[in-house]
């Protein structure tokens, strides 16, 4: 019996008197499934992720239902949610330079994730830390564990963050633009690392990005988010082959700039879709 | 919202102090200096003296009003001294960068070890106490705060692309300082000036309480508190009014500074 690791139904998030940041969003992530959530900045992707983690700022008002690993998230006491976070569900953030505590050695920060959720002897924790640091491709794990974050490069730090997210083999990993802040060359290696580690852990993944090309490397299903709503939800192949929503068509076209004949103008999303509604279809 | 509230209250209190100081130049309910042994220690709210009279028979309200003059005078001169020395020092440090910047930081470190009161004591020991020594001491003690703020702000301005462009065009440092740096750091310096004004009022109150500032018969809030201490057992209410005046004035300048800072920093406003 396979019940989804994450199920979101009619989720809305409102800050103050503003327009809803997320307006009636529904989707599910099956065990081991990798779902990409793409959209422009401000479309509500990250707010959705924080709602799933139960980490929205206190002034946010929510409605709808979020089930995580079979348990409701919204309006749940923080103590019970904290037991899930880092254990059954974990999160990888965008900014590796600041995501780690600058005053604590990296090894201790990884060990903390274990210690928070498992009763493990000290020696075993240490061994597990070195094992996972090695597994995320950090050479010399003992040396890395003994370093402070500022002594590591951006790519190394993001590997540490990945290690922290995977060390408890969670059911679901939420990645919020995990490669956006990295150099292009480092991006590729971190993506393939995520790919193999997720496969090994058998974890489901909700991968948030504004970049269809990045999402396409990792995910099997794509959710397209626009102005707080999900406008398209389809398997990757279908999105690429026959995108339905004009905004999605724009995303697909802009992701395929290698197919534009030399000398022609590169496409932009605005060629396919604009908020005023006048779509210039003829450019296809 | 909160910034506007701070600003409004700050402006009202500061305005009150300034207006009181100005009005007292031409009018006070009674003579703020003349001793009247027939009117000694009248209680407040009864009879013709609204806040009563002190141990010399002087009307307390009149004395408080006139004291606002010294408070404003000391504030303006002290902040002026600090501005004139501190800002050029900070801008220089920020423009030169490197060793110059480091040197100014070290100098301000040592400078910070001489707070206003200590300087005032040194000056009083050497020259005798007066409003002048107090103002200079408070002003000098406020220099490092201005120097540091100006330096930090200048460093930031100097790293902006348009300044780099101006330097690449061969604009001289002095021209850059006047054209680009000063206009940009002015708001921050203004905020610091408001806060320093409040600090100056506090320092002056302490100095005149200790007898290290204006000499009698010049009325000051600090001196009034020192006088009031004699009558703590019989007329404790005398110790209330001058203290309230100091606190209101300082609160006014602090709130004004805070409100300005929040208004000037849209990024902060967005976060809170």
């Amino acid at each position, binding site marked *: 019996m396979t019940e989804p690791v994450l199920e979101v139904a009619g989720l809305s998030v409102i800050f103050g008197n503003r327009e809803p940041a997320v307006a009636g969003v529904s989707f599910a992530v099956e065990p081991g499934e990798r779902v990409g959530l793409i959209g422009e900045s401000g479309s509500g992707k990250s707010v959705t992720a924080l709602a799933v983690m139960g980490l929205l700022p206190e002034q946010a008002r929510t409605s709808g239902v979020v089930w995580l690993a079979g348990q409701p998230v919204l309006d749940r006491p923080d103590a019970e949610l904290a037991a899930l976070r880092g254990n059954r569900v974990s999160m990888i953030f965008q900014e590796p330079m600041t995501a780690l505590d600058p005053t604590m050695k990296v090894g201790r920060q990884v060990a903390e994730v274990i210690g928070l959720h498992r009763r493990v002897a000290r020696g075993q924790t240490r061994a597990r830390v070195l094992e996972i640091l090695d597994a995320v491709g950090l050479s010399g794990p003992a040396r890395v564990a003994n370093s402070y974050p500022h002594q590591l490069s951006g790519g190394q730090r993001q590997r540490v963050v990945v290690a922290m997210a995977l060390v408890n083999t969670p059911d679901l990993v939420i990645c919020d633009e995990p490669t956006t802040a990295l150099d292009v060359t480092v991006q590729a290696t971190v993506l393939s690392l995520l790919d193999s580690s997720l496969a090994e852990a058998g974890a489901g993944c909700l991968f948030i990005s504004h970049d269809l090309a990045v999402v396409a490397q990792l995910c099997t299903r794509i959710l397209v988010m626009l102005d707080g709503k999900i406008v398209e939800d389809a398997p990757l192949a279908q999105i690429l082959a026959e995108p339905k929503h004009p905004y999605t068509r724009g995303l697909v076209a802009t992701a395929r700039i290698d197919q534009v004949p030399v000398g022609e103008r590169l496409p932009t999303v605005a060629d396919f879709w604009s908020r005023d509604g006048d779509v210039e279809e003829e450019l296809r | 919202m909160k910034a506007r509230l701070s600003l409004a209250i700050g402006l009202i209190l500061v305005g009150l102090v300034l207006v009181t100081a100005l009005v007292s130049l031409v009018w006070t309910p009674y003579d703020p200096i003349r001793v009247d042994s027939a009117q000694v220690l009248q209680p407040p709210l009864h009879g013709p003296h609204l806040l009563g009279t002190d141990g010399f028979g002087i009307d307390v309200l009149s004395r408080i009003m006139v004291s606002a003059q010294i408070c404003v005078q000391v504030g303006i001169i002290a902040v002026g001294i600090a501005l004139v020395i501190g800002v050029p020092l900070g801008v220089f440090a920020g423009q030169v960068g490197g060793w110059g910047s480091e040197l100014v930081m070290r100098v301000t470190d040592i400078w910070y*070890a001489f707070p206003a009161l200590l300087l005032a004591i040194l000056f009083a020991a050497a020259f005798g106490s007066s409003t002048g020594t107090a103002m200079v001491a408070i002003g000098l003690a406020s220099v490092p705060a201005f120097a540091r703020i100006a330096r930090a702000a200048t460093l930031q301005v100097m790293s902006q692309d348009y300044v780099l462009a101006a330097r690449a065009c061969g604009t001289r440092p002095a021209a850059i300082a006047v054209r680009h740096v000063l206009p940009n750091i002015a708001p921050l310096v203004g905020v610091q000036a408001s806060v320093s004004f409040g600090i100056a009022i506090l320092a002056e109150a302490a100095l005149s309480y200790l007898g290290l500032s204006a000499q009698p018969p010049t009325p000051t809030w600090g001196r009034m508190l020192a006088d009031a201490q004699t009558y703590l057992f019989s007329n404790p209410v005398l110790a209330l009014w001058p203290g309230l005046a100091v606190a209101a004035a300082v609160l006014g300048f602090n709130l004004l500074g*805070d409100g300005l800072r929040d208004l000037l920093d849209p990024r902060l406003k967005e976060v809170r």
Partner: protein
Amino acid sequence: MTVVVAVAKRAAIFVVSLWVASVLVFLACSALPGDVAQVILGIGADPASVDRLRTEFGLDRPLIIRYGEWVGGLLTGDLGDSYLTRRPIGPDLAPRIGVTVSLVVCSMILAMVMALLFGMHAALRRRHLDGFLTSAGSQIGLAVPAFWAGILLVVVFAVGLRWFPAGGHVPLSRDPLGWAHHMVLPVVSLTIVQSAVLTRYVRSAFIEVLADDHIRTARAIGWRQFPALMRHGLRNVAVQVVTVLGLQLASLLVGAIVIEQVFALQGLGTRLLDAVAQRDLLVVQGIVMLLVLAVLVINFLVDLAYLAIDPRLRTPGGTR
């Protein structure tokens, strides 16, 4: 190794600062035109006896030699003899140091504890009425002169309720209870202002840390909000608060001078003010130097504390 270099650099800065400060204090007290001999003998004194007294005090010799003697004495703990009492200054000050230090240290500790509690409360509850009131309270505390707070406390608790004495001091070694009884009001009046200042720093430091990415990470790995702050925020808050602690200590020492006057405590401050009134310049010079020394020592310790708290500073050329 890099730690040794970092400590050595800060120690060098400390020594140079101390030297510069000693020159400044000496010049202020010696080179300025307040002639001690004239003051002691009075305006109408016969010039010959003024000159004789000047020679007796050694005031006719070059500045540089007098500076050398003074600093040489300082290094051996000898502050010289008072011009007025003709007695050594050091032994006269020794018992007073204890009074001032206990006042300052007690106030500092109390102010720190209160600032941490109030500052954290004001930061965590900043969107609520109680948090706002805490900030507003600190704003008001900031505007209150410490000596006025002291006077008001005397009015209420010494004159009115008669719970505490209005002034005076009992040595800790002779009568600990009596000492505490006499210290309550002075310490509280000094603490009110200090904790207001520190509360504001703690509040803004916590608000900044609350927005830090690594606190969000801590929450994402399963910490609840408060433990996350304690474990991953406190050090970062400490770096910022320690910075102002050094500066605050200077204002605390100065505040102690005034508070000693309010409560008639026989500390360094009251002696300093007496010496100023009598123009006993060598005593002024000695006490001011002691106070400046205290500030510089604290700043040095603060610098060392940074190294312990923030690992980024330990790397060569490391800044934050």
